[in-house]
């Protein structure tokens, strides 16, 4: 297991190195000039030159890359051209919003998806099964963006049950420690702040969770159906083991393996879906920030954020692979 982790981490370093090179070339291939984007249409040549010198854009590109890589190795991701804030600082301020949303969506998808998929499989051909199969198809085909707008319109604007935008009521004086607002409220015992942040999460999480939910339901259902027909389940039933034990230990545990693989792959879809959901619900996560960074040609932010996201994505998939070991001990041995 340890070798697996070490090997994967080593591979990650190589991937990141390649990615940094690609990103560097890519952001510089974007049309436009970052100094002009910062100083506006009427910028003077002197002003442009000052900015270019300050950020090293006046040097040959290969030299810029070497400097960039050198800083990167020392953990220095630079500062945003647009706001002057260090990229790492902005990331720690913005990313929690996106992660909080993605986690809420994922938890929702797991908490609802696995039992639903399991029940559908156990009552194959019943009304629940039909409902689940049909509903999950709908969940996959309806775009996140559209669902978000509909949810917001019906549940927030028409019924007024949920807020329409943001992460927390502007009237709540909340202390922010980790920038995970729900967690922050718990840590500081500002229960109202935590609850409010949770209420703000419901609609975005429902919208974003729709796709992983649909996929989890389908995979769980298929996988459980698969396992139910297996010899070991029949043996367990023949032994007279209680139904609950068969379900938990012999069916679910085996059936969850493909589900957990799916979860890892969903991480990427969740991150990109979060960007759309953030737009609909005016959440200040990384989505809106990256969008601004592209329009403003904020090279350090683009390079830094995308690298971070790549790291997160790779780590999530590593965690998923390691989790196989817990679900299926045979993986640990091999």
């Amino acid at each position, binding site marked *: 297991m340890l070798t697996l982790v070490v090997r994967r981490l080593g591979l990650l370093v190589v991937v990141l190195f390649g990615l940094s090179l690609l990103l560097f070339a890519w952001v510089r291939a974007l049309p436009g000039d970052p100094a002009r984007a*910062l*100083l*506006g249409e*009427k*910028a*003077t040549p*002197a*002003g442009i030159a*000052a*900015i270019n010198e*300050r950020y090293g854009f006046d040097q040959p590109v290969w030299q810029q890359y070497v400097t960039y890589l050198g800083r990167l190795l020392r953990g220095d991701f630079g500062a945003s051209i647009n*706001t*002057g*804030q260090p990229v790492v600082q*902005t990331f720690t*301020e*913005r990313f929690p919003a996106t992660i909080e949303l993605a986690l809420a969506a994922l938890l929702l998808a797991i908490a609802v998806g696995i039992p639903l998929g399991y029940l559908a499989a156990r009552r194959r051909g019943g009304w629940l099964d039909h409902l689940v199969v049909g509903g999950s198809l709908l969940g996959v085909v309806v775009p996140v963006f559209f669902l978000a707008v509909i949810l917001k319109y019906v549940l*927030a*604007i028409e019924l*007024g049950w949920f*807020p*329409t*935008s*943001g*992460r927390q*009521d*502007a*009237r*709540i*004086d909340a*202390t922010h420690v980790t920038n995970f607002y729900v967690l*922050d409220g*718990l*840590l*500081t*015992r*500002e229960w*109202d*702040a935590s609850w409010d942040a949770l209420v703000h999460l419901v609609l975005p999480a429902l919208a974003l969770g729709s796709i992983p939910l649909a996929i989890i339901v389908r*995979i769980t259902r*298929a*996988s459980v159906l*698969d*396992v139910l027909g*297996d010899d*070991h389940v029949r043996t*367990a039933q023949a032994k007279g083991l209680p139904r609950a034990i068969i379900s938990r*230990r*012999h069916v679910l545990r*085996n059936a969850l*393996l*493909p589900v957990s*693989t*799916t979860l890892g792959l969903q991480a990427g879809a969740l991150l990109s879906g979060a960007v759309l959901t953030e737009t609909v619900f*005016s959440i*200040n996560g990384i989505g*809106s*920030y990256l969008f601004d960074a592209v329009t403003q040609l904020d090279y350090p932010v683009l390079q830094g954020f995308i690298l971070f996201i790549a790291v997160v994505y790779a780590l999530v998939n590593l965690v998923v692979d390691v989790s196989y070991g817990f679900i*299926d001990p*045979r993986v640990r041995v091999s």
Partner: protein
Amino acid sequence: MSQSQSQSQSQSAVPEQDPSSARPTRRAFTLASVATAGLATLSACAESQRDDGGSGGSGDDGGGRDTFVFGGSADPDSLDPVFASDGETFRVTRQIFEGLVSTEPGTTELAPSLASKWEASDDGLSYTFTLQDGVTFSNGVPFDAAAVVANFERWYDLRGLAQGEDLAYYYRSIFRGFRTNDDPALGESLYAGSTANPDGTVTVNLTRPFAGFLASLTLPAFAMQETGAVEAGGGNGADGSDPRQSAYATSGPVGTGPFTFSAWERGQQVTLKRNDDYWGEKAKVATAVVRVIGDGTARRQALQNGDIDGYDLVAPADVETLESSDFQIQNRPAFNILYLGINQAYAPLGDLKVRQAIAHAIDKEALIGNALPEGTKPATQFMPDNVIGWNEDVTTYEYDVDKAKQLLSEAGQSGIDVPFNYPTGVSRPYMPNPETIYNAINQQLSAAGITTTPVAEQWTPNYLGTVQGTTQHGLHLLGWTGDYNDPDNFIGVFFGAATNEWGFNDPGLFEALADARTVTSESEQESTYQDINEQIMTLLPGIPIASPVPSLAFAPGVEGYTASPVQDEVWNTVSVSDS
């Protein structure tokens, strides 16, 4: 693929025999205890920073709420107004800072602010301000004559990047130069120096008279800041960095206003706290928040949902919806102008008769009824009627299709075909829906035999680039919102020099406008600009169309908000109650 994989794995699986069913439970228990301990440790170092008594959800003093939440469309650029020219920045800084002079609420009339009175010398070259007593900046530093001098000197001394068009925009356009000009386009500064007098007053000297000087001081860009804090926070960009990114401009602005800065969560909100030591009428709410919601529809929905208490630039189509469900709509007195621009460099448009034909072909009343908010007035000249120098008797061109046709044939044009540029996907205070306005004008023009070829472009960067940066356009839609009550801020901006937008060269007009800048009294300004307005409307470089009324919307419980034509809206008088 993962599905078939699992199948083969589970087929060969030997069901795990777990002898001790207690094991996972014990493991779970250990995990839970570790998690609890961890949370407790973290929580021990995460103290709530709330004030005693809390200022959460809703206050309880007499049913009033202690937080006012306003929906803004974007983050401020920075918190230092000297380096800003956009409404979202000023919306925030107007609460934190005050200028020497401000406007009477709801009008463009000058009103005392940090200066209780002022006097101009006869030659218009020096202004002496008497300051309010007992005013301190929010960091405790007294506001006095020396502080005023320090502010004027600070602006005058800006160097490098800070002098740029995108940064010290208003200083450049009003004062026209710095102590040391780093941009060759700049000239001698209007500012000559200032002195703190022994009697506590302050005198500001100018190098040449400028009629709009006092009015321009109402601009939020010229608000008084605590220059000690500016310096300490790197707010002048002395090291060659962008001063908008300094610690001062992002987290430490210090002014004398009714609110003080509390927090700025980028992309989310700016939070302001009541300044309990404010010298004037103290704010009714303890906290004011500008919440960033980029999309106009989302702002309306946030208001309907109660997430915010008010927002600006309500879409004309939303006004009725909101009013019918008990939301308050406030119309901001129009201080803008929408016009149909004509490029005289484009073949037949250089002919005065053709331009007159276009003017007679347009039915402004019908256009307003079709495409502009209720309460909008048609325009007769290139400024709204509340600006100094507006001419009641200016030459007008009434709607008359036959006359338009006749003028065209007199010009030897039986029917003309010109490109018509208009922007898409944008809403400006003077032009809420360009597409609708284009359609209405186009129909009216074609009825008079003037055919147009539509050229629709994105607002930024294409549209302005085409109509202001190139000569390749015929007719176009554009407008302007005034910053302060000075005619030069309207017609001086449009017709002060030869431009690609209008495509004509009239040295007589340019000179008249340059001279008008230097008259010293308001009455002289009045008559001078009335003459110039007549001159412009005879030349007919374009067709002024209307001054559309921008609207604000508020929740039923909001009181005390006075909409200002120049957006000089300070929230100390605002109260919010549940209703």
